[in-house]
């Protein structure tokens, strides 16, 4: 009897899907059910899920190149995030969104131009920083995860000092009169809030769908997908899967790791700008510190491992994880008023899944 169950196709399919994913998907459905039962507005909650999916998607996507090239989970995407913030801030400082010449063509065009300028500058900074970061990571093979975490943390702390002392002048950026440095939250209202989110935005009842955001996210996925299938991308995956074999096949492993790291950093920079234009604010200072953990958790929930990650992992994982976050908040507030259970939930899920993944890929037993 038990054997027939374990041999059945459904069971095998579920086993392949993995226990953590089953639990998390079940939890997601439970929350959806809870939202419906408590009458908290299923449609608007689903709209919320979709917009969060688009917001966090590209940041989670940044994990794919780094995992595939063998660097592993890149907890140091905070490097890319800070360069993204820097590009975004410069674009606001230059006030491209309100440039008379561009506004004369069309106000929407000006906003888009500002957004693109931010992304281009951020990509440039991210590529330069990612290059040096990749060089460093080539020197610390085998301990990347610990090193990347602390490089990321120290970068955040370093940029915190920079945010305080850099000579930005624009009134939307810096604290008014007495304060020093850039605001904790920089509002994007007067620049490129919703630059791509507002494209083709539509509403069904109380559900708002930011079509532009989702399309942009899917477009970035397509780029990464195509890249991973290019000659460079395949060579990169080979390095990640088996460095010795790759070297024997004549692939420059260090170069491939460098490319993967740079690509990951650039994606993170694009990701934070996309995130912020939907959110409406740049969150400065320590806000992006845990972003690396959240992104890593998302791909891991999607079924990735520290050695292998696919676009599908990103799509599924980000949707499940961010879906739980989006649905969890109203449900938890309804059931347990006056507590911050949904925030606690985020911490437990994101760090729990990383611990699970680490425990699965143990370096060796006591009897090696």
């Amino acid at each position, binding site marked *: 009897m038990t054997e027939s169950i374990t041999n059945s196709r459904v069971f095998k399919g579920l086993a392949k899907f993995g226990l953590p994913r089953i639990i998390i998907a079940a939890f997601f459905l439970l929350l959806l059910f809870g939202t419906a039962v408590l009458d908290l507005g299923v449609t608007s909650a689903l709209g919320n899920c979709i917009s969060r999916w688009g917001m966090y998607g590209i940041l989670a996507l940044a994990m794919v190149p780094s995992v595939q090239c063998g660097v592993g989970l890149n907890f140091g995407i905070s490097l890319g995030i800070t360069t993204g913030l820097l590009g975004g801030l410069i674009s606001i400082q230059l006030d491209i969104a309100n440039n008379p010449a561009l506004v004369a063509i069309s106000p929407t065009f000006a906003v888009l131009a500002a957004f693109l300028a931010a992304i281009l500058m951020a990509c440039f900074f991210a590529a330069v920083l990612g290059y040096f970061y990749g060089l*460093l990571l080539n*020197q*610390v*093979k*085998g*301990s990347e*995860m*610990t*090193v990347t*975490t*602390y*490089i990321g*943390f*120290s970068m955040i*702390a*370093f940029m*915190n*000092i920079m945010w*305080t*002392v850099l000579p930005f002048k624009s009134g939307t950026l810096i604290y008014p009169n007495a304060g*020093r*440095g850039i605001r904790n939250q920089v509002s994007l209202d007067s620049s490129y809030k919703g630059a791509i989110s507002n494209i083709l935005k539509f509403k069904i009842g109380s559900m708002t769908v930011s079509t532009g955001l989702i399309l942009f996210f899917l477009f970035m996925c397509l780029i990464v997908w195509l890249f991973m299938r290019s000659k460079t991308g395949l060579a990169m995956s080979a390095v990640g899967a088996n460095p010795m074999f790759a070297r024997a096949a004549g692939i420059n492993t260090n170069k491939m790791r460098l490319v993967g790291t740079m690509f990951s950093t650039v994606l993170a920079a694009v990701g934070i700008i996309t995130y912020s234009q939907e959110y409406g604010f740049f969150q400065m200072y320590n806000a992006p510190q*845990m972003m690396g*953990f959240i992104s890593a958790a998302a791909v891991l929930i999607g079924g990735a491992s520290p050695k292998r990650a696919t676009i599908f992992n990103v799509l599924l994982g980000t949707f499940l994880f961010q879906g739980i976050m989006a649905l969890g908040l109203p449900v938890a507030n309804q059931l*347990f*008023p*006056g*507590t*911050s*259970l949904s*925030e*606690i*939930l985020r*911490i*437990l899920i994101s*760090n*729990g899944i*990383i*611990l699970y993944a*680490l*425990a699965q*890929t*143990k*370096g*060796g*037993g*006591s*009897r*090696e």
Partner: protein
Amino acid sequence: MNKNTNLIKRITQMIFDSKVTILFLLLFIIAAIISGKSLTFIIPELFTRIARNGFLILSLIIPILAGMGLNFGIVIGAMAAQISLFITIYWGLTGISGFLITALLALPIAAFLGTLVGRLFNQMKGSEMIGGLVLGYFADGFYWLLFLFVFGGVIAFDNSKLMIASDASAYNPVSINTAVRCVAVFCLALTLLLAAARKAKHLAVPVKTLAIKCGLAVFVLVLTFIPQLEPFLSHSTVTNGIGVKNSIDLMGIYKYALDTVPMIKIAEYGFYIYIIFSLVSLVMKMIYRQKIHWKSVVIKTVIVCGAYALTFIPAVDEFMRRDKVYLITVVDVLLPFTFGWQAAKWFNARFIEKKSWNWHRAVLPVAGAAVVYLVSFIPSVYKAFQLTQIPVMTYLCIGGVCLLNNGLMKTKLGQDMRTVGQDRTVANAAGIDVDKTRIIAMVFSTVLAAWGQLIYLQNLGTMQTFGHTMVAQYAIAALLVGGASVNKATNRQALLGVFLFHALFVVAAPAIKVLLGGDAGAIEEYFRAFVSYGVIALALALHAWKKKAAK
């Protein structure tokens, strides 16, 4: 000639090996000059911070020797400390006795959590460090659940000074008594169920550990029925709100509880403890029919009694009624003491054990003590030393951990840890239970970290309920500054590290203020975070680099 080049080579190697330390020393000197602060400001502040943080940093050493790297899991020990601190404050305990009860309560909590951490780390050998870091954040989730929801929301705490004032009418919390009973019954049922499952699978059931676990659960269950304990396990289901306040003032509760223990009390209780300890050890030896060295027992007892008798001399008594000594007194005593100690060692080696005596090892301590003594004649230093007060009990605790770290390595367990740390395969072949040894190392570290956090909090005077997240980061950065690495650390490096790391931060805030003008509050915090993260990143990168080069 050859000898000379060798010496130069060794010196350059030594400088290269301690580059992080030297970098910090330079940074400190530059920052001290910029800040324009005098030694009378720096030195007292520095010694306060060493007393505060020394214990925590020393708790990192055992796992490093056991090959588990820098233990980012000590933050879990800190959580255990804060949980027990909250409970004993709720019980209304104060002073040194309350503090000791808190430490006693933190022991089983930290030991239990330590075994869990150790078990998890055994699942991820080789990535303990990143695992420990993520585990810290993960455990934070549970800690927040406990302090923001369970305390007040599930278990009633009737104290408006501790709880966040909020409307709790939507909740029906149970009394502490009920909660403890539920947990005890749950644990009992779980243990028995697991044992039954093992039995059903025809696996061996460890009867002894099973009996201990069940006995503990029943013991706790019985405790809840003792009427005398009712004030502690109140039946009240009234709660003042959901969640614990952000910061709890320890003024008048535990502030300086340990720092202000008078020396005379230490001597008195130390004497009693020694007598009891030696009596117990004598009885044990008699029971197990081991040989007793009567001569050494008598000599030791006479010395201890004599020392204790000295405290009855009025002048000594007067001196020992204080709880702090001036640094200048310590420095004055240090030189003759070091001479005496080395002479005693020489005497012991030459005439009692008849071994050759290695004078090289005596040069450094004697020279060090002499230099410190000479430096204290510089007027500004003399003034600073005169102003600096040292809390005796806290420093004795720090010394105690140093002795524990050293003493443990001389036991069988410590040697096992060393072997496991060097090579797990060899250790396993030699018949050492690798996993168990690693768990024990983790338990030691977690318990010590819990006590370290208690010492830190009693000196600081306020408990930031959610302010423990950086404990591991700062402690590890300090240890690395002292020249330790991922697989090698000594007490001396830990002490040097805490000295230099905190020396920099004592002068960093005023230096930044001078450089940038105006308010430096936020920048100082960022700078401190940057330096500690940067040091950790640097040390980890250098270690990985070296490992790669060695391959």
